[in-house]
């Protein structure tokens, strides 16, 4: 009995020690120091009312094999004004059954030493989304006792079925000290097999330093690393700005992932060479069998000249293969497993159509390859990030001694050699069976994306005007309109076009609208509007201000300075030719001065001419490129900010007392 008792006691002691050891490793409150209380925003140019003193994150993936990864988050925030008390309200969403939130703790500290803990009953758990097979819940709490001069801190632990993957130290408020400890998977549960597979699941981290620098340290040593410690200091607040690249491109971040040792150790090119072989093998599998391909391609192969062969193949695919990527019910279609199935069934996804195109070029012996691209509204291609990052696959035609020509018949309404604007200006990865390279896809030129409007404006004396407009659109401009009208029936199309027009003429009443589009040709949009014009009688004169619609800009810039680069969709050109007929009984006395602005952002011209009883106005606005560094902000801002002044431009009319006008 005694032996059993003492054994039991030993076991109990051992378990207690084990649990103590375990809890000793859990994050606990760190001491609050006088320095913490001294934290303020006095030296900061921009005030936020709060500063994050500490963020400590521990990602424990030791149990990854059982789909249990633990992330513990600890934050301490200094509250400096009443508006910043909102930081005491915390939301933690999680996916029920797959994720779990544990051990939420929080407290508020006051200057007089009082500590107000977060009580269990102040933590709420609610379902925020429930659907078949999916339940998303949210734990939330409001820390009690906040004043506008206090310190709050909270911590919680979340269990995930997969690794956390990234650390973003940039927050809405400044961060003084950030730490991320990554305890990566080291074979627990794999036993003997880990030594076989460890080469394939090596930890890897990629640090993108932008605003601040993340330091990394391998612990306990570089030779025998068990975990990685990432640290960062004095991170300024991240403030999003309009027309910026995506946040994951702008912000400092650490990306943490598992890959093969070979990939970890290899340089970028070696990794992508190996990846290229794997990817190309996928295409080759898709490209055979190809009896139907050969038959279909034969019709183009007989055409003279490489260019005509390519364009014929391109147009054939766009006209004869239904693009199901743009359909809502894409999943109702059977999945194609080969190019021949795409051609036989007459439908395919964007990727499948591009594979088919590539296969056609190969069949015709045209030097060509595949291009892997990212969409620049989602991110960028990072060579050092050795995992698949791409959003779509395009096709290139190799040209001797020159840049490749890139095609994508799998993207609706693109002309040959036109690329979706999302991929212009991005670094891509191009490959053939024999080679691979990194290539930056150029931006399209402004003249290629042109909107040419011819407007005829008849103004009545009360300011009501009728406007007849003919718009001719090319390039990306034309494509955007075509996409807006894609697969719409007559009424829906009219509605889409009405919305398109009303965006440019918000106070107008649309009378009629018509779209003319022929494959491969510019899009023509014709419409008629009733439009109120600003008019003022000044003695025997009439002051006419009909240019309100020209003052509308797609892009507005109010901030004085800019921190981040900014980008527009694409370079563009707008050309307006406006013929204004004044009200009967009035003649032209004076016209505004012509304006010529040749700014770095692009030319901006406005010219007025009188021809008989009509005023002819021509305007050219060209944005020369879509991507700009922050240092260029002032010139681009001025380029756009001049637009509102157009509504002030005034045409001066005088009463026409001539006999000729009396007869009208």
């Amino acid at each position, binding site marked *: 009995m005694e032996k059993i008792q003492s054994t039991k006691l030993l076991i109990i002691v051992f378990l207690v020690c084990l649990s103590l050891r375990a809890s000793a490793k859990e994050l606990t409150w760190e001491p609050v120091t006088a320095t913490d209380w001294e934290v303020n925003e006095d030296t900061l140019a921009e005030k936020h009312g709060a500063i994050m003193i500490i963020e400590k994150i521990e990602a424990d993936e030791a149990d990854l094999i059982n789909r249990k990864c633990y992330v513990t988050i600890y934050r301490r925030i200094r509250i400096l004004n009443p508006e910043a008390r909102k930081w005491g309200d915390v939301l933690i969403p999680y996916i029920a059954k797959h994720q779990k939130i544990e051990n939420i703790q929080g407290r508020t500290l006051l200057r007089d030493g009082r500590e107000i803990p977060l009580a269990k009953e102040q933590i709420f758990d609610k379902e925020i989304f429930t659907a078949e097979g999916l339940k998303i819940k949210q734990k939330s709490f409001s820390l009690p006792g906040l004043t506008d001069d206090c310190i709050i801190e909270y911590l919680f632990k979340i269990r995930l079925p997969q690794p956390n993957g990234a650390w973003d130290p940039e927050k809405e408020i400044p961060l003084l000290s950030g730490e991320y400890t990554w305890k990566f998977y080291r074979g627990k549960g794999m036993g003997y097999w880990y030594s076989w597979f460890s080469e394939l699941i090596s930890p890897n981290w990629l640090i993108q330093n932008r605003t601040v620098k993340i330091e990394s340290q391998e612990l306990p040593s570089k030779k025998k690393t068990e975990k990685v410690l990432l640290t960062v200091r004095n991170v300024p607040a991240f403030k999003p700005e309009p027309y910026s690249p995506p946040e994951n491109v702008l912000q400092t971040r650490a990306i943490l992932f598992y890959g093969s040792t070979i990939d970890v150790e290899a340089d970028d090119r070696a990794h992508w060479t190996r990846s290229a072989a794997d990817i190309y093998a996928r295409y080759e599998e898709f490209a055979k069998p190809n009896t139907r391909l050969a038959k279909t391609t034969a019709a183009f192969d007989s055409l003279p000249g490489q260019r005509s062969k390519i364009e014929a193949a391109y147009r054939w695919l766009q006209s004869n293969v239904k693009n199901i990527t743009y359909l809502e019910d894409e999943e109702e279609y059977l999945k194609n497993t080969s190019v021949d199935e795409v051609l036989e069934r007459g439908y395919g996804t964007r990727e499948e159509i591009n594979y088919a195109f590539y296969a056609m070029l190969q069949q015709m012996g045209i030097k060509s390859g595949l291009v892997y691209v990212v969409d620049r509204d989602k991110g960028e291609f990072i060579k050092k990030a050795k995992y698949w990052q791409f959003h779509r696959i395009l096709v290139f035609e190799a040209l001797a001694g020159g840049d490749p020509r890139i095609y994508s018949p799998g993207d609706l309404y693109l002309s040959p050699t036109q690329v979706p604007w999302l991929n212009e200006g991005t670094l891509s990865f191009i490959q053939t069976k024999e080679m691979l390279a990194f290539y930056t896809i150029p931006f399209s030129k402004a003249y290629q994306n042109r909107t040419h409007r011819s407007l005829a404006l008849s103004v009545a004396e009360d300011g009501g005007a009728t406007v007849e407009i003919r718009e001719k659109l090319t390039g990306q401009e034309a494509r955007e309109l075509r996409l807006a009208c894609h697969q719409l029936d007559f009424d829906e199309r009219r*509605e889409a076009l009405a919305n398109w027009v009303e965006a440019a003429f918000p106070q107008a009443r649309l009378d009629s609208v018509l779209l003319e589009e022929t494959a491969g040709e510019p899009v023509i949009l014709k419409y008629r509007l009733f439009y109120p014009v600003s008019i003022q009688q000044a003695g025997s004169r009439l002051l006419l201000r009909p240019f309100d619609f020209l003052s509308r800009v797609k892009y507005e810039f109010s901030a004085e300075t800019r921190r981040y680069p900014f980008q527009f969709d694409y370079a563009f050109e707008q050309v307006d030719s406006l013929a204004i007929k004044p009200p009967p009984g009035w003649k032209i006395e004076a016209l*505004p001065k012509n304006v010529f602005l040749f700014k770095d952002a692009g030319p901006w011209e406005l010219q007025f001419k009188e021809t008989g009883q009509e005023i002819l106005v021509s305007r050219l606005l060209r944005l020369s490129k879509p991507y700009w560094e922050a240092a260029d902000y002032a010139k681009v801002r001025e380029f756009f900010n001049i637009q509102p*002044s157009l509504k002030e431009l005034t045409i001066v009319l005088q009463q026409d007392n001539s006999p000729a006008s009396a007869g009208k």
Partner: protein
Amino acid sequence: MEGFRELFIAACLGGMLSFASAQPDWAYNAVKQSSALTVPKEASAIIMHKLTEVEISSKSLTKIYSQIAVKILTSAGSSFGVMSIPVSPFVEVKKLKGWIIKHDGSAKALPADNIVTISPQESAGYYDDSHIVVAALPGVEPGVIVAFEIALEEKGWTSLFNSFTFQIQEPVKFAQYAVTIPQGWDLLKGEWRTGPVQFEQQGNRYLWTARDLAYQPEEPLAPSWDFLSRRVSVNCFDPSKKGAHHFSQWPEVAQWANDLHRQAAAADQQLIRETRSRTDSLATLQEKLRAIAAFSQKEIRYVAVEIGKERWQPRPAPATFFNRYGDCKDKTTLMRAMLEAIGINAVPVLVNTEYPVDPDLPTPFQFNHCIVGIRVPQDSLPERWQHARIGDWLLFDPTDEVAEIGELPWPLMGRMVLIAANADTVLLQLPYADPEDFRRVYHTRARLNDDGSFSADVDIIDYGSLATYSRYSQRINPGSKQVEEWRSEMAQKLPGIQLEGFRTAASEDSVTTSFSIKGQRFIQKAGNLVLLRPNLFYSPEPPRLTAEERQHPIWFGPPIEINSEVLWQLPEDWTPEIDLSEFESGCSGALLRSQISFSGSLLHYRFLERQTGRLMWPDEYPGARNYDKDLSAIKGQTLLLKTP
């Protein structure tokens, strides 16, 4: 037997399939009727059939059965293919079915996968136990009819209040609302814009029916759709159980609110001590009120916990004080407790910040907000505070972040409120704002150079409640942000200007913002003529009221008064042609006045724009239209300058 079995299986399968997709008769009839319709081209959909039957039992259990069929006319109408049903621990969905019926009569049923439940609120600091069941029909496009059938059950006293909206904007072919109450019970009704709706009572069944309600067009300067919608609300009660959640008069509602709040408003010793420590050193009643109001408003952050009975019942004042957070009723209760601690009587006041309260429908469900009513002698308070008084009560909203004690937030102005005191409680109307309560003065000294460039020193002075808003904005926005906002605003009217020397100053009744601006291109040169727009603070805008006819009321906006005064120093020997030295125009909703004079090289421009906040009815449209045209002309008024 085998043959029979096969036949039986086939019949069952066929039956299941047809059961799954066959639409009910009422939906089928809606389809039949829709083919012969003339539809207005602006409408995005037509409500073909909308019916709600409400059956209230004596156990306060209510069954609500609804049918709706909508013909989709444009893609904007596709939103009718989504049904959102608020649910809570009191409201349960018993049945939810839907169909999409195409032109050829074929129908598809709502798949189970297309029903999700979401939380209406996901923002931080808001906790509730409500959800929304969302059902979305797939493949909704113009030409189809969408139909839903819903059965709900609502338990408890909240089910005694119900409402039905006949129409918001789209045309309605048929809509009916029926309420059946237990024998011996009474029903009170509130009807809003229900002129075209027929009402009849059949014993204990109350029936409202509407047919062929015309499309309500979107018109500029119209009130909100909440105002324009046609709706009925009802409140039912058992006369033998007055009080106890059966409300037939406003004093009963007031008593209920008072009882609910009473216990929570009791201060404990610590709260009493804390209150006295903050007020004992203050000499006047005004100062004490200010201190307690500021504490409730600024020290207690807004966090709403609306779970279970906490939807209506405030938390105990000591708990709110400890937590330093609460919602409107918690803040009100805490403030009451603190006032009581120093011997000042205060009560909760119920108000609705969104809808007008129907005085014929006494129910707590007409209110969505709670503020404080403080009983103080009339002569004990400053004259300025009288705007926030009603009878013996000084009103204060501790949830509003801007308005200080003695001021009413403008969203509450003109609203009906229920002061939850014990006796003689009636609905009262809060005073409506005067434009002078929201007054701004632009005072500018400008210099025009002969090369067209200009410079100006600008003072913007806000008075009354506008000063309160400005004060608040300055408090929460850093200086750099304020500068950016002003620069952005001025740049809309004067592109390319530089703004310098930004500063602010505040006194008890006004806030002044000052800065200097400079620009290169202010005048227009047209041939030999020079054009000057004397008012820097407006830019030319075409008139908004251009239609010949009008269906909806006209509302120019909330009460406000803006005075602009600009003194221009022109270049020597430049003279303006002034053909309109004085001009005035007005209607019951607004007025404007402008004056221009010239002497030496000084051009003196004055402009007054005043909005009364009054709603104008459609028969007043010609006057409103003329005023709007004049306003457009004067805002863009341009002077021709003669140069040497």
